[in-house]
């Protein structure tokens, strides 16, 4: 429930300018491989998913990658840093079409497209992942954070592995 009188428009959780800055910082952190900062963009009990469009459209619940809490995200970071084996690579993320779908005093729903270009050593850059992200952001104390981010891949045939997040 909003504390504001009902005859006043609700003040949304974030305006477009703040959202854009949030996403710029998010993508920058990941592009720079500052993986330890990734979970900080999310609330403690967040949901993060990457899934194929065929699953999403058919209502099938499988994820290619899922974290059901910030703790699970931290565990993933440890996986990338310490347990997993993969070829060195860079991902660069390009976001477009950011649109506020719904804004209330509690949360803002945003959708945007993503395009991730992958560069492996001695290989030309390739479009690795493309799709749409459905996000829900909330105010967590003073900070804007993602309570939910679901990345739906149009590109269902992955070029071998999906290592770092989108």
């Amino acid at each position: 429930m909003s504390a504001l009188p009902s005859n006043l428009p609700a003040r949304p959780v974030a305006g477009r300018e703040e959202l854009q800055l949030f996403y710029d910082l998010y993508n920058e952190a990941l592009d720079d491989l500052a993986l330890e900062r990734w979970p900080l963009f999310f609330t403690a009990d967040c949901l993060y998913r990457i899934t194929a469009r065929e699953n999403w459209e058919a209502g099938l619940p499988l994820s290619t990658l899922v974290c059901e809490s910030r703790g699970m995200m931290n565990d993933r970071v440890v996986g990338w840093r310490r347990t997993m084996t993969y070829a060195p690579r860079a991902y660069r993320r390009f976001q477009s079409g950011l649109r506020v779908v719904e804004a209330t005093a509690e949360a803002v729903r945003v959708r945007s497209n993503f395009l991730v270009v992958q560069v492996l050593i001695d290989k030309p850059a390739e479009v690795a992942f493309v799709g749409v992200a459905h996000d829900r952001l909330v105010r967590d104390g003073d900070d804007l954070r993602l309570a939910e981010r679901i990345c739906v891949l149009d590109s269902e045939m992955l070029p071998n592995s999906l290592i770092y997040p989108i």
Partner: protein
Amino acid sequence: MPEAARQWPEGAASRVPYWVYSDPEIYARELERIFYGPHWSYVALEAEVPEPGDYRTTAIGERPLIVVRGDDGEVAVLENRCCHRGVKLCQDRGGRAKELVCPYHQWVYDLKGHLVGVPFVRGVKRQGGMPADFRQGDHGLRPLRVECVNGVIWATFDETAPSFRDYLGPRMFRHYERVYSGRPLKVLGYNRQHIPANWKLMMENIKDPYHAGLLHVFFVTFGLFRADQKSAVEMDDSGRHGILISRRGEQVKNEVTATMRNFQGDLKLEDPRILDVVQEFPGEETVGMITVFPSVILQQQVNSLSTRQILPKGPDGFDFVWTHFGYADESEEMTRRRLRQANLFGPAGLVSADDGEVIEFSQQGLGPYGERDALVAMGGHEVGNTDYMVTETAIRGLYRYYREVMGL
């Protein structure tokens, strides 16, 4: 590589020449004799086509297929190729249809693949049309032999193949029935990845328990799969199919983990729900990884169940299609558990991403060195079932059969 240069190296069973992973002529022979030969291939789960008219597109080797349930409830597997001019007529992943129509000239087939309509078959204004000797009944979408076995649909192009049960052999069929008991399945979703490596490297990976206790740091660290755990490697009599069996233990440090260069004994999960494992099958085994030659890996890793279909795309790459499933009558909690554990597997899996990456590294190393050969002598030179993990016996079994069917 010229045929004369293709010699199988000395020490036969424990050596594999690298040219089997890169030679285009060998690859063409594999498609002909293995994928299109007297072997059963995985095509789909019955749960994917539950109702009459439901269809899915799939493939065996490089050949596109349609899996469709007819009005009588029987499943047919049809060549996805119009008998007129060869058009791959179904372009989507699946759906429901009353008939199958080629988009090019609108030839119409029923759900059994019978040709039931040819536009202008008698021409227009008595001009053109098919000649008098054209018999519509002689044409159709060619059906494959099909067997639905406890929820899984298998198919073969070859009329001479034995029954699926005999193809697996009694020992492997018993293992098969552990997960595929006839209890109805439900599909949880798909993952697809193209792995730039020869398809056999994926089969070898799942026939190689030696790597699992070394490469997969996550597995070993959390006790899911470790070289000192009670385990077994079994094959059918031919050596072409295999299973790795293991049981999980606890997170420990011992002489086995001390041998592992990158063991991470201090790791602790912040959110351990990913390892919330329950024993759901009879016996103490928690892992049963089956390779059914040549097309699929049947995964039971704790509570995560999937089929991993291999679709070869030339000698140096294959598509790998993961279909995760549970049981239709299971609790929501069990389904959630499977979905969580699926984080270990697939193209982003905490464990399986290691495999996709490392077999790509294999192709990078062995591809350009066709005249050299691989050493697969862990556990000796023989082929036989074992009750330990540090062995490559199932890879030797695979190549013993491979040489026979390939005439190498």
